[in-house]
């Protein structure tokens, strides 16, 4: 019972802080909302008996990456808001589609059946400890995805550097463009977190 209430609380907070993070005007407030989101993600991991992941979530995401976001925010001047024309002018079309998707997701929940269970049941993990199980799987079964993940970080690094570097003889007109440069690296992590 407690687990269910805790899960409900975390899910609600994640949804709320996620919506606030993209709708608030002040970028610093947005980053703080992402912090709240990260903490509740860690809570979700705890309900899954994944205490190592929960710790990593707090130390790496809430601790390190978020501070990086804040640094970036302070380094680039965001006085002017970047404005792009929407592909579809009427916002209600998007809202209706999003609402429809949410309704469809809620509708299919009763039909959802859980697939076959893997080898790592709670008992199996308790025997070898969570961290060891994670390490073993990561460096054996999931070695290739793990290495690709490393390569993605390299790409983010090279891409970020290439975008942030000023061309020789570049004019000040580029300053506005550079406000957008740290985005790829940042959101890379955001996607990974999801």
């Amino acid at each position, binding site marked *: 019972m407690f687990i269910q209430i805790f899960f409900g609380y975390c899910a609600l907070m994640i949804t709320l802080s996620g919506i606030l993070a993209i709708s608030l005007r002040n970028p610093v407030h947005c980053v703080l909302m992402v912090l709240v989101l990260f903490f509740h993600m860690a809570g979700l991991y705890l309900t899954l008996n994944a205490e190592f992941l929960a710790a990593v979530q707090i130390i790496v995401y809430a601790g390190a990456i978020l501070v990086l976001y804040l640094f970036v925010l302070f380094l680039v001047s965001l006085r002017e808001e970047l404005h792009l024309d929407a592909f579809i002018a009427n916002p209600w079309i998007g809202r209706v589609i999003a609402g429809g998707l949410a309704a469809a997701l809620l509708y299919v929940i009763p*039909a959802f059946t859980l697939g076959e269970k893997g080898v790592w049941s709670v008992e199996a993990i308790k025997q070898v400890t969570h961290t060891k199980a994670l390490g073993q799987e990561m460096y054996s079964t999931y070695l290739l995805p793990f290495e690709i993940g490393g390569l993605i970080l390299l790409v983010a690094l090279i*891409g970020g550097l290439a975008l942030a570097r000023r061309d020789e003889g570049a004019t000040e007109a580029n300053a506005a463009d550079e406000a957008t440069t740290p985005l790829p690296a940042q959101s890379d992590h955001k996607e990974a977190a999801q």
Partner: protein
Amino acid sequence: MIASVAVNWTALEPVLPELLLIGVAVLLIGFDLFLPRQRQLLPWLTVIGCLTALAMVLGARPAIGFGGMLLADGYAMVFKSICLGTVILTTLMSERFCAVINLRQGEYYSLTLLSLVGMLLMAAAGDLMTLYLGLELMALPIYALVGLHKRDGRTSEAAIKYFLMGGFASALLLFGMSLVYGLTGTTEIARIAEEITARQLTANPALLLALGLLLTGFGFKVAAAPFHLWTPDVYEGAPTILTAFMSVAPKAAGFAVFGRVLYLGLPALHDQWGPILAVLALLTMAVGNITALCQQSLKRMLAYSSIAHAGYALLGLLTGTIEGLAAAMTYLVMYLFMNIGAFAVLMLLAAPGRAGESLDDCKGLAARNPMAAALMLVFLFSLTGIPPTGGFIGKFYLLKAAFAAGYTATVVGAVLFSAISAYFYLRVVRYMYMDEPRQTDVLHVSPGMSAALGLCLLGVLGLGVFPGSLLDWTLAALSGM
């Protein structure tokens, strides 16, 4: 306690081409950093690396690597060859163009190669994890590449739009994948099909929703309507060399994962995804061809035409038959040559300080440079689908496969839209041959460019005259699937 385990190096064999390309990509950055005077060697190093990788891909034995994470089979080989071919051709063309628009070269080649590695992994993905990570590895360098050319305000806007849209599409795709994983308990694509039959999930609404989310995500990646809205702006805003690359390679890789998931993972749901794809294909062809009619920019017109061609390729995919899949793969090979060729001529028109992307710029091209005009004529004929070019044969195979599978209405629509497309392709031909030239400066054709143009011409005409060998190749590649 530390247990030492002997590393089995032969396990790396299926990813050797990828490892080689990663090595070349890192080498390119080093070259750019420490030997700035030898920068003109960079494109040639890239080409040699890609050619070696191509030889390795074509010579490799079919293998299953990393416990099913990677399927280096014939299917992967065809798509890997398309992606490698795109990078080879665009790199050959890039040398002078990069100088003209003042693009930073070291990072350009390196990021292209890393993106290529992502595509190769996508083509060979046997597991949803590899598939998704390959997709991100492909997409991230392209986001950066689109924004790399900072002199132009449009490129930053294009990069932002592409990045936001791509991130959103990835999220939808991941949502679909997570539902599939929850329902079947596995991420291995071949096992997903087994679990779906074993658990009788075909009518499960949750699985159908997952299918819908997957189709949406893949639709974004191959720019099928109604998920195409980002395409024209991004293709127009990016440097032309990158547009040529983007309009073929990521699209082919997108089709690779599309086909792999639908044919290997969800064949039991063909009754659902067949009709959905038929509607998407019709819509894509309609949007691409009709909107291309009223474009004043040649580059934007080619962007819409590439949307339309994704619609044609979908025709082969929706059949659910091996013949249809082979036809789609054959068409993508031909599309590689004709589309890159058309973009190559467009790139020839660019001069320092002038983009040369509008329809006016190609007016009187026949008088300025008869050779370039004749080449453009062949590529446009092929894009329209006029014999004896490859485009005609490719479209013929697609229509035949879709007709045999019973999608008569879709085939009729495809023929109609193909006829409409003749108007805007042939309008360019009219401008080239019938109008007076606006500019008189001589076109500069670098050796790499002529090699690329020659290869494209050879591909378009050779495959048009001897099409059987290519179809046999793709069919043979699929025989193991």
